[in-house]
């Protein structure tokens, strides 16, 4: 979000805090896509994502008077949405954090890469349009991550939350957050690498 947008948010927020419902609706307009996207990525359920978006903005409205503007409004509702999504995931199931079968690079006994990458596909990340098959492979690989790793990866690399925020939300230490993030990235890198080896 640009600096101007943040300033516009502040103005809308001030009006909403003074009771202007249309200003609050304008804030919802600006941030609903991001909130819904986060919720859908986290829960993989459109119904849950819609409910999380509703709960998030209702909660934001109910706590408007407490919001002092130290952070941007967008970051604030984003954190509320992330918390709501995590709570819903925890209610639905015991989190599967087993990581033994997480993919990653293999090494020789001397610590050298056992398999040399066939090509450096990093440049393709700059392509504007993502190959449809690659997109599917990435979504499948993300879905296959153990839940505790998937949520850390999504919260950090997709939603841009800080390590401190994730640590607090997920209830694990910052080094554990970093470890899970690294393992998740390695697994996803392997999946993308495997895709490019096949095509």
């Amino acid at each position, binding site marked *: 979000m640009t600096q101007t947008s943040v300033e516009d948010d502040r103005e809308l927020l001030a009006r909403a805090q003074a009771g202007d419902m249309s200003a609050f609706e304008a804030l919802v307009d600006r941030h609903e896509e991001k909130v819904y996207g986060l919720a859908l990525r986290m829960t993989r359920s459109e119904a849950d994502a819609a409910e999380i978006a509703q709960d998030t903005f209702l909660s934001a409205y109910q706590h408007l008077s407490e919001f002092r503007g130290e952070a941007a409004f967008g970051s604030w509702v984003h954190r509320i949405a992330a918390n709501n999504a995590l709570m819903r995931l925890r209610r639905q199931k015991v989190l599967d954090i087993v990581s033994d079968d997480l993919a990653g690079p293999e090494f020789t006994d001397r610590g050298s890469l056992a398999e*040399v990458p066939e090509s450096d596909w990093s440049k393709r990340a700059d392509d504007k349009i993502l190959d449809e098959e*690659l997109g599917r492979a990435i979504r499948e690989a993300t879905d296959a991550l153990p839940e505790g790793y998937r949520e850390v990866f999504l919260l950090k690399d997709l939603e841009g939350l800080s390590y401190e925020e994730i640590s607090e939300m997920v209830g694990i230490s910052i080094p554990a957050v*970093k470890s899970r993030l690294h393992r998740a990235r390695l697994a996803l890198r392997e999946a993308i690498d495997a895709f490019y080896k096949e095509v």
Partner: protein
Amino acid sequence: MGLSRQSHMFNCKESIDSLLPFLEGEMSPEDEEHLRQHLNGCPPCVEFVNTYRATSGLCRKALVKSMPPEVAGRLRAYLRSKLETK
């Protein structure tokens, strides 16, 4: 380059294990130097670093989700119904 310095040069595994602090600039200067020495002589690890770095961007593109208009409409109606009764 002295022998003791050589003996500290990272192997591939140590280099890849250190990627996250390396990319975030959180390594000690000594470890960063050991890692850079390894990368200077290991093209596969350079490719690995490049592709590791590109992974998040590709995932962001693959996992973009947009809000259907009808969901946005329902959200608006829900909030109005809740807030008007307050």
